[in-house]
């Protein structure tokens, strides 16, 4: 019918589109994703294992999201991902990638491997820590070309402690696992307890080696026998015994920490603030739920893409200085704009408090104030650390 006239207009539109877009050159952005496959050893609670591609799928989704945006600007994003159990192999890959011109690295490894990678490459590479929650990296190591999208253990535990304070669950019994990571998690909780005025009335080390699947009902009540406590805190990052503390304590009390009510970066139950859309995009891509590691990798790549979109540049120096500037803001489906702390490169973000089937709360809790940004009540504030080399 009127198809002919439509077609002429269509051609005109294409010509116009071509004319406007030829003004801006194509921009290619290559991002390297390095993941260390970590063997946590045998655990008692081995029924629901963590997905092996936790982190990787988040990175893939971020690339997909960024390319949908990029096609309107002639920006193209490419992910080069490497998974290995050996730090040496990852190091080799990182160097190879650097030689090929890649400057953006999203790293999901242990603290040690991350430091090894950063040291081995020149300073113009920009690293995102999307795997290690070590406080040390945010308080003492402080590398100028390192940003953190995964929260530190202190951020997580501050979020938890604020909630305990709000709920007036003041007297805490602590149970800590035997791994160094468990001890670090406990140390972060102790710091939070001191900051927000909680009382630790008992500290216990988990050192049993019985099979709790059979005997939790007998062992745990005795282990948690104590005159009075409001809540039991568990530090068991790899999920060895923690699941068996719930409903088995001497006094009928809630369990919080790495099991029970947990502070996390991300979880399937987070669905407000448009998160439902991110969750469904993720599920479509990977046929599983999005977790904290996925979110951290997603946020890292989205940060790079946001800087490239706004600056129309793809070099690491421009991207880094834009990300660290006040102009930077990331819409991260957590109800507030996210930005990086200038004093240690940590991504500020609300911390969801969840149990496996629902979101209980999100910290910062109301009433925990900060002169500049309430999100900075979570984790190490500027005055608490000495990172003088960060702006070098």
């Amino acid at each position, binding site marked *: 019918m009127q198809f002919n006239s439509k077609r002429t207009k269509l051609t005109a*539109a*294409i010509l116009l*589109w071509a004319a406007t877009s030829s003004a801006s050159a194509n921009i290619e952005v290559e991002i390297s994703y390095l993941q260390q496959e970590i063997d946590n050893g045998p655990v008692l609670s081995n029924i629901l294992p963590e997905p092996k591609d936790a982190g990787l799928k988040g990175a893939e989704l971020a690339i997909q999201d960024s390319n949908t*945006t990029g096609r309107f600007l002639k920006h193209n994003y490419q992910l080069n991902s490497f998974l290995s159990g050996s730090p040496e192999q990852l190091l080799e890959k990182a160097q190879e990638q650097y030689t090929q011109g890649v400057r953006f690295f999203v790293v999901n490894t242990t603290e040690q491997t991350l430091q090894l990678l950063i040291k081995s490459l020149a300073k113009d590479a920009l690293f995102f820590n999307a795997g290690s929650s070590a406080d040390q990296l945010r308080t003492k190591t402080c590398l100028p070309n390192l940003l953190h999208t995964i929260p530190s253990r202190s951020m997580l535990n501050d979020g938890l402690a604020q909630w305990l304070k709000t709920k007036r669950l003041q007297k805490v019994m602590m149970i800590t696992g035997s791994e160094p990571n468990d001890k670090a998690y406990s140390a972060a909780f102790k710091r939070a307890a001191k900051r927000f005025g909680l009382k630790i009335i008992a500290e216990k080390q988990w050192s049993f080696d019985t099979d709790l699947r059979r005997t939790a009902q007998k062992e745990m009540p005795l282990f948690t026998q104590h005159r009075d406590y409001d809540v039991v805190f568990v530090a068991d990052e790899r999920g060895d015994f923690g699941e068996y503390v719930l409903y088995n304590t001497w006094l009928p009390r809630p369990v919080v920490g790495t099991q029970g009510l947990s502070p996390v970066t991300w979880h399937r139950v987070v669905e407000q603030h448009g998160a439902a859309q991110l969750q469904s*995009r993720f599920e479509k891509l990977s046929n599983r739920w999005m977790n904290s590691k996925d979110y951290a990798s997603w946020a890292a790549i989205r940060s790079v893409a946001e800087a490239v979109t706004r600056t129309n540049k793809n070099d690491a120096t421009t991207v880094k200085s834009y990300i660290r500037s006040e102009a930077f803001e990331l819409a991260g489906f957590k109800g507030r704009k996210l930005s990086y702390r200038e004093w240690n490169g940590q991504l500020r973000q609300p911390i969801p408090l969840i149990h496996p089937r629902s979101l209980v709360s999100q910290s910062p809790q109301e009433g925990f104030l900060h002169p500049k940004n309430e999100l900075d009540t979570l984790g190490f504030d500027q005055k608490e650390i000495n990172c003088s080399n960060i702006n070098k």
Partner: protein
Amino acid sequence: MKIKNILTPIAAGILLAAPTLHAETAYVSNEKDDTVSIIDLDTMKVTDTLNVGERPRGILFSKDYTKLYICASDSDTVQVMDLKTKLIIKELPSGEDPEQFALHPNDRHLYISNEDDALVTIVDTETSEVLAQIDVGVEPEGMAVSPDGKIAVNTSETTNMVHWIDTTTYQLIDNTLVDQRPRHVEFSKDSKILWASSEIGGTVSVINVNDRKIFKKISFKIKGVHPDKIQPVGVKLSDDGRYAFVALGPSNHIAVVNANTYEVEDYILVGRRVWHMDFNEDQSLLLSTNGISGDVSVIDISKMKAIKSIKVGRYPWGVIVKP
């Protein structure tokens, strides 16, 4: 027309009074209840609650107010309700996860944003035919068609763009980068200016439709509320050209913006997490949906104050008024 012949002065009087006998009604979509609440604006009470498809969000009327279109997001369809019988008479092929939509002034073509698929779907409401699907950015949300019918506009929440679509060719003609998480777009009556809210950016961009460039960015400040909690979503322009009302989400306020100077003149306190708004016919009242408090605030425009809150379903999303 035939009635005219037998009109007596008394009958004319009754006819004139008729609009007040027949009260205006507001329709509210309740996202978590899969219902639409109907509010009588004379009594300010909910008179009916209708079951609709899953996760109803965007709602609008046909020009003659005989039909209600409902984006049933999780049912992946746009439902058409006959307002006389209150029955769903048709389901339109909307594409997946329809969230917001806009009706072309021709009263036939519905422009729908498909949030999960980065698409805008254009459907003929009479033939149920999909006329076109247009690739846009990630999480398309806001939709508007210019009053002159020439341009359709869509916002993508994660791509942070306003996408401009030619309504004759169904082609994308331009993209304007705006602040984080653009939610809603609204054309001025003369089709010359577009208002676009950015939820996480905390701003409203005012864009010249001719060159598609931002010429003014409005930001907001409310005493005692952290700037991050000021999240602009819904925008509503008054017909007299004086005001733009901007719903500011979790700050629980609506900003009153002077539509000529672009200065913020006032902030109105409403319910919790305010999203979308609509006027009654003479524009003496403005209604807003408040998601977390699960109610609708009624604002008296002459006083610029909320005078009533009406409890509706869970997570009210959209509101529209039928004269």
